[in-house]
């Protein structure tokens, strides 16, 4: 059976990079990943991007980035699935290599948020929802997450600081990640006093939109260079699922079906059960999404996902460590790069290169990337071969 290896990983620091454009961000991460892969040459490039046509008036990123990276001539396309674009691009690369049609495939997730600011960014983000029936009402992803969180707290009797654990964990883990946007732990009082963005969602329940790029080089095990030096990490499972685009069209708004289906399929393919997963990189663009993912995948029962954060179960030494390098909350949410950052970070954990944040003996990681309120969900099981 073909084993798809993550041969190279690369990333830029996440932040407000006013001086760096879209193509340069992508190039940084690509060069990092190609160097890490020890000289492998990609035949295909899959770009994960969410909003460049909107934010930077730039479409056609496949050709742009392949050309700019000195890879003119290779197959190169963009994969778009809102916040899940990075995970979706990775899956296309995985399928290409797994099928044998491509020997080495490069994935780059890139997002350049700061070409626009304020209301224009909110308008752009809202294009990922149902434009005719959600965005037209002035609904934004953050306000949608807020009303989801309000209903969740109403049904499950969650205290007002019930979600604090997600932000506290993320910021504690981000402190030691040199690529994170925020590298400072926060105290519970900071969360309690934080400015309300859209009640009950405060500024610590929302990941910051920021610029960033992350890259992965995939190849088959038998094609690795003879002198390949990194510990071997493979993609053991890959799956995608979709749900209704509009949140109001769901039978149960508080259950992320697509998160459950895609995680279940990826785990089945990998032959892995929940107890074997050593760390989980979730899509904590909003803390309520993290809670709903923990429930959909089965780490918590319905209505109790928030308790894992409140109890410390998602900490580095907890039952199921999450957001181990700061997650989207502290590392920063770089749109179409977010799903690629997750896997770069998971791979560094499995290579035992995570420094102060290392999960001792980590062998299996789950990364899940969401588009909207899990209207798209991509799940990948990453496994150490050493």
């Amino acid at each position, binding site marked *: 059976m073909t084993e798809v290896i993550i041969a190279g990983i690369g990333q830029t620091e996440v932040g407000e990079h006013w001086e760096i454009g879209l193509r340069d961000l992508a190039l940084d991460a690509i060069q990092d990943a190609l160097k890490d892969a020890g000289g492998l040459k990609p035949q295909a490039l899959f770009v994960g991007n969410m909003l460049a046509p909107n934010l930077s008036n730039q479409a056609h990123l496949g050709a742009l980035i392949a050309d700019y990276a000195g890879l003119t001539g290779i197959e190169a396309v963009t994969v778009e699935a809102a916040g899940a674009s990075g995970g979706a691009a990775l899956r296309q690369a995985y399928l290409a290599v797994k099928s044998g049609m491509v020997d080495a495939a490069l994935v780059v997730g890139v997002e350049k948020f700061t070409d626009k600011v*304020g*209301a*224009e960014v*909110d*308008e752009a*983000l*809202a294009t990922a929802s*149902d434009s*005719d*029936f*959600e*965005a*037209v*009402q*002035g*609904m*934004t992803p*953050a*306000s949608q997450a*807020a*009303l*989801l969180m*309000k*209903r969740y707290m*109403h049904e499950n009797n969650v205290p007002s600081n019930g979600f604090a654990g997600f932000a506290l964990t993320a910021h504690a883990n981000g402190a030691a990640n040199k690529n994170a946007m925020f590298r400072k732990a926060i105290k519970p009082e900071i969360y309690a006093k934080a400015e309300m*963005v*859209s*009640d*009950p*969602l405060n500024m610590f329940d929302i990941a910051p939109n920021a610029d960033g790029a992350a890259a992965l080089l995939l190849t088959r095990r038998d094609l690795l260079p003879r002198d390949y030096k990194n510990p071997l990490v493979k993609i053991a499972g890959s799956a995608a699922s979709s749900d209704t685009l*509009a*949140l*109001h*069209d769901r039978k149960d*708004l508080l259950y992320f079906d697509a998160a459950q289906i895609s995680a279940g399929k990826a785990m089945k393919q990998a032959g892995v059960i929940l107890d074997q997963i050593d760390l989980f990189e979730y899509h904590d663009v909003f803390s309520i999404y993290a809670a709903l993912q923990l429930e959909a995948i089965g780490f918590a029962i319905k209505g109790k996902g928030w308790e894992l954060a409140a109890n410390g179960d998602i900490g580095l030494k907890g039952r199921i460590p999450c957001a181990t390098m700061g997650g989207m909350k502290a590392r920063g949410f770089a749109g179409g790069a977010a799903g690629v950052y997750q896997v770069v970070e998971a791979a560094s954990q499995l290579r035992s290169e995570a420094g102060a944040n290392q999960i001792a003996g980590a062998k299996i990681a789950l990364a899940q990337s969401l588009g909207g309120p899990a209207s798209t969900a991509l799940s990948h099981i990453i496994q150490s071969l050493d």
Partner: protein
Amino acid sequence: MEIPRHWRLKKQRYGLVGEVCPHCDHKIFPPRDVCPNCGDEAKEQYAFSGKGEVYSYTTVYEAPAGYEANAPYTVAIVKLDEGPMLTAQLTDVDNSAVEIGMPVEMVTRKMRNDGDERGLIVYGYKFRPQNFVPTT
């Protein structure tokens, strides 16, 4: 300017016209032509009563472009009496007085405008409390 896109949705925006499935009688809004309940074709038009209740809500302070003039405003998911849910702004109500379960009814209001005086003004449905009494 997105005139055709808004124009072709006028029945939904002004009349809350959805569909009813001829096979299972499931009421559908927004219209989608394939019944989400039984999977059969559902193209029969159905005008909703416009009555429902608030499933959940929040107040938006940082509005997206085109909506700044209205902020802060409250957006909600409303469960219509006939079954389906939809996303809508609430109006004619103190934002702090909204509650989950509050009975609401549809009204027609200005949704957004495209900026300058020649820009498109989009009208559509919003919801207000059913016990609303106009102050004169």
